[in-house]
């Protein structure tokens, strides 16, 4: 059922203004190219869902694509703040951003509930935290056997899940490995899904219990080599740590941020164009 198509067509056909969109990938395999394409196509009023909003959401938020953010940890990992996220929350620029805030355990449970067809996920969490007071999607229930108080988090069922993976075969079966985060769950929880991949191969030849998304749960597969940059794709290229550091400067001021995004994202046709324009070489994978 998966269609192998260009990222531009996939985004044009599957993501609408106002959608709940989850771009997942925990440090690894972050779908940055897809984030750029959402910006290029000018999507608006998105509810963005993600465990760890980092650069990919800093860009989407700074470019005014998001109305609402569902998340658990928003920073530039190992570097510091996300300046565009902070500007939106602290000063409402480019416009105010509504927050639906979870812990990692809570948001992960909400994805698992979504993938499992359950209306809520259960966890022994949030006790004593101020988070539930600010998030109506966290409630508490009693165990019918022990009376223990447990947290219930409303299931997340995105309109569109977007992930990056290492490989797909020609039918659209997707194989990812290494740090797999909640990618399988978000695809299964979503109504539609877009998977960008490093390459399309004839045969996956995956290990028996590999993390595979069968073609019939994926809506579109888009070959986008380097599509995770500055995140990494295990087996293909390493994390571009220098870019994460550089981003701290690029994103600090509104003007420089806008100029950078206009020049390298809005003015380019696709991800290959972006990489050329920004002068990016994918870091070779260092295997110790």
């Amino acid at each position, binding site marked *: 059922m998966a269609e192998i198509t260009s990222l531009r067509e996939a985004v044009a056909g599957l993501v609408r203004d106002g959608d709940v969109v989850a771009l997942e990938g925990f440090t690894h395999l972050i779908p940055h190219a897809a984030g750029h394409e959402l910006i290029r196509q000018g999507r608006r009023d998105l509810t963005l869902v993600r465990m760890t909003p980092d650069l990919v959401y800093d860009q989407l938020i700074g470019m005014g694509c998001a109305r609402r953010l569902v998340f658990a940890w928003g920073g530039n990992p190992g570097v510091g703040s996300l300046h565009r996220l902070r500007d939106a929350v602290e000063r409402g620029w480019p416009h105010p951003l509504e927050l639906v805030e979870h812990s990692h355990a809570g948001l992960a449970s909400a994805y698992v509930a979504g993938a499992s067809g359950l209306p809520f996920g259960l966890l022994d969490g949030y006790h004593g935290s101020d988070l539930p007071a600010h998030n109506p999607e966290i409630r508490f229930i009693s165990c019918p056997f022990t009376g223990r108080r447990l947290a219930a988090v409303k299931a997340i069922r995105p309109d569109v899940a977007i992930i990056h993976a290492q490989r797909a075969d020609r039918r659209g079966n997707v194989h990812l490995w*290494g*740090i797999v*985060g909640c990618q399988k769950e978000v695809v299964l929880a979503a109504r539609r899904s877009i998977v960008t991949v490093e390459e399309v191969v004839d045969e996956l030849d995956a290990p028996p219990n590999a993390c595979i998304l069968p073609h019939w749960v994926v809506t579109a597969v888009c070959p986008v080599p380097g599509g995770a940059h500055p995140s990494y794709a295990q087996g293909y290229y390493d994390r571009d740590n220098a870019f994460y550091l550089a981003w701290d400067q690029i994103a600090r001021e509104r003007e420089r941020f806008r100029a950078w995004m206009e020049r390298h994202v809005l003015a380019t046709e696709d991800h290959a164009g972006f990489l050329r324009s920004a002068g990016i070489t994918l870091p070779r994978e260092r295997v110790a």
Partner: protein
Amino acid sequence: MKLAWTREEMMAIAAARLLPDGAVCFVGIGLPGVAANLARRLHAPDLVLVYESGPIGAKPKVLPLSIGDGELARTADTVVPTHEIFRYWLQGGRIDIGFLATAQIDRFGNLNTTVIGDYRSPRVRLPGAGGAPEIAAHARETLVILRHQRRAFVERLDFTTTVGYLDGGDARERLGLRGGGPRWVITDLGLMEPDPATRELVVTAIHPGVARAEIEANTGWPVRFAAEVATTPAPRPEELAALRDLRARTAAAHGRPSGE
């Protein structure tokens, strides 16, 4: 007196010493990664590192810049989905030590990593909870590491992201949390531990070259000292050498000094 080591180094080494060999340590984002990986190179080669991104039994040769670096996945015994880390391994009661950093801490070891100021219109929006609330709830004990600054050690948190001992005494037990709570707070000035009865954090050790007054000046509440306050043993040469080697290899790999 010019010391042969920095307070940052003392902090990392003092923290590393608290990690027993063979323990299973859930490594939070930031400073904990340095200390945990240092411990593995010193007295605790069999310290099991679990990262919230999914690696179990990671044995990185350089400090990761993030908690999801490829180095962690490549060197792990296995990599599981993120939700499994939280459900089976943390909530399932398999973690001995939860090791956290924080932006703010109060006298009862409660943590704030969410906002400075009001939640709805914050002065500073911090990254948020991440794994911390449940790490601190379920790990058998928690270690917290942060620089000792008055803006961090506050009389009153702007937001309670993560519960330590709540308002002290048996409040944590009454809340039903299964993990034991903060066991140590490690700073660049000394060590704090909870008073057995009140659960207020008290200074139990001071790093060499640090005065009591400096700790008092950098703590936002009238800080108490234990009846007997130890002086942290200064870094031993092999500790310093291991830490500096780790940082040097990290710098060579990443083009920058550390995983902080």
